[in-house]
């Protein structure tokens, strides 16, 4: 069994494999998104307190879930890369970071667009939004560190270590921000006070989250292919790949 894993973890076998997997994940993402959007707009009932504005949660909550989930997955790949001293896991961690940062940003902006009509303010320093903001800083730090180290192997390892330090800190940061929030009861608003959930609402969020998840896998695989090409452009397998591509076109 082990042999298979090592075979698929080398760039030259993983590159075409990823290429074949991308359309599948992309289409599954589209299907889930269509179902999720249909439930969010046509099946989920109007909330009697928040009116139609609550429908923002169908992007806000899944984006927030994904932002945290991607960080965990990224740290997992990082740990794997460090412990096995392998290239592919480190590349996967690097490929996931921008997508995670985008979902974090989306969660922040849509949260703000939800807060404005509901509570009359664009920004609330509540525990969730604040932790989400800090998560964005952690993503940006990871990306900045990796892009400022020239040697890719070194960048991989340094980034992986930073991701691990971050993942140990995330629960502590979340706990401390929550504690800070309960002590400063200036704002009684809580973004956590979501409308009373109906099953269809949960279902809508679930499908949107699944769509985001599949999208993340597809786009991370696309990006990992780019990273492989950039790092190994002089290697033989890339040359063979290019020959095949031009042969196919001619």
């Amino acid at each position, binding site marked *: 069994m082990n042999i298979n894993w090592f075979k698929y973890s080398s760039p030259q076998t993983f590159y075409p494999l990823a290429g074949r997997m991308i359309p599948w994940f992309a289409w599954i993402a589209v299907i889930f998104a269509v179902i999720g959007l249909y439930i969010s*707009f*046509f099946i989920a*009932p*109007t909330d009697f307190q928040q*009116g*139609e*504005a609550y*429908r*923002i949660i169908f*992007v*806000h909550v899944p*984006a927030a879930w994904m932002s945290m989930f991607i960080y965990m997955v990224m740290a997992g790949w990082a740990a794997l890369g460090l412990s096995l001293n392998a290239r592919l896991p480190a590349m996967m961690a690097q490929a996931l970071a*921008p*997508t995670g940062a*985008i979902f974090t*940003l*989306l969660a922040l*902006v*849509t949260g703000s*667009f*939800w807060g*404005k*009509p509901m509570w009359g303010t664009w920004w609330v320093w509540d525990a969730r939004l604040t932790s989400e903001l800090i998560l964005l800083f952690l993503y940006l730090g990871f990306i900045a560190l990796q892009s400022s180290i020239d040697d890719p192997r070194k960048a991989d390892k340094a980034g992986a270590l930073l991701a691990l330090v971050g993942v140990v800190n995330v629960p502590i940061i979340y706990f401390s921000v929550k504690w800070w929030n309960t002590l400063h009861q200036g704002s009684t608003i809580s973004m956590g006070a979501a409308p009373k959930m109906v099953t269809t609402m949960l279902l809508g969020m679930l499908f949107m989250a699944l769509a985001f998840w599949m*999208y993340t896998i597809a*786009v991370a695989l*696309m*990006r990992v*292919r*780019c990273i492989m*090409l*950039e790092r190994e*452009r*002089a290697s033989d397998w*890339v*040359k063979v790949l*290019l020959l095949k591509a031009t042969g196919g076109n001619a």
Partner: protein
Amino acid sequence: MHWSSWSAFFNMGGYAFYVWFSFGLTALCLAWEILAVRKRRDVALNLARLLAQDKQ
């Protein structure tokens, strides 16, 4: 189905700006990300091609 008409649907009970901005921005960001990654791939492929030609 609880929308009386399409215009009621687009109006979103008076919250059209907030709701459509949130969904629109999300769609825009994801589309932009895909385009950016595709462009990065094309650049990488071109560079690799140039390198292969140089060596020949």
